[in-house]
């Protein structure tokens, strides 16, 4: 469980550290946003079906609904702007981290699954928020892309608080 949390955190940390060295362009930001959302949608779907506690299952359902809504808006926007998302070290790392997390979660059941999923969600949302604040929002050039990132930021704050509450109810 610890391994997955640490792995996720280190993978996501790349968003902040990579961009600290060099700011991503809008096409790269688009790829990072779409991948970050998709990773959480996939984990949410697994939690809906495999989670045990009602809170965990409904949190998974919420992640699927909210991140799907954000991704639809992101895809609509880049289509309108004629920007082709450009995969990069950060989006690749996010994707690999997401796949690793899913593989880890699929080996767990019951309370162990619930705890590992929620621990990962806390780490993931902390890191995405840091990336939004330190890198993605400041680097976005197109005003509509920047506005979309600003608009969805409170969702990540809410998800983080929600996940922390569930984490506390599961016993840390």
């Amino acid at each position, binding site marked *: 469980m610890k391994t997955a949390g640490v792995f996720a955190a280190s993978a996501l940390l790349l968003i902040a550290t990579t961009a600290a060295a060099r700011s991503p362009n809008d096409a790269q930001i688009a790829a990072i946003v779409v991948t970050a959302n998709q990773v959480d949608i996939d984990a949410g779907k697994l939690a809906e079906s495999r989670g045990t506690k009602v809170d965990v299952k409904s949190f998974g359902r919420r992640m699927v609904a909210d991140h799907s809504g*954000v991704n639809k808006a992101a895809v609509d926007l880049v289509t309108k702007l004629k920007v082709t998302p450009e995969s990069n070290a950060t989006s690749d790392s996010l994707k690999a981290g997401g796949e690793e997390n899913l593989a880890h979660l699929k080996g767990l059941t019951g309370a162990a699954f619930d705890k590992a999923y929620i621990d990962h969600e806390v780490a993931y949302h902390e890191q995405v928020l840091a990336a939004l604040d330190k890198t993605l929002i400041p680097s976005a050039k197109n005003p509509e892309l920047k506005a979309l990132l600003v*608009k969805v930021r409170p969702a990540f704050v*809410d998800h983080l608080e929600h996940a922390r509450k569930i984490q506390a109810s599961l016993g840390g």
Partner: protein
Amino acid sequence: MRAGASGFKVLFPAALACAALSGPMRVQVDAAPKPAVHEVAIEGLSFHPETLVVAAGDTILWVNKDLFPHTVTADAGAFDSHEIAAGRSWRYTAARKGTYPYRCTLHPTMHGELRVK
């Protein structure tokens, strides 16, 4: 306090009588205002305005401008929109006076308050 209260009771019918005597034009001005419609935008996981004061009989329209569903659910159960999809809205006519704190059941950081005077 007692004297003041009883004084008010005596004066109030007198005021009504004056209004009635002043003719039909005056009576129209004093008629109860038409119920209003108020809009609360749901955007960026906040209710705008967060606190809304309305008169009994007014209608409130909550418009979901976010990219995913929300609910408008009174803490004490007076009203519940259930899920309002992205881009959709929900209306509620506030019949009873009172203070109604409400929340979105899907997002624990979202809170608002409706005051019906």
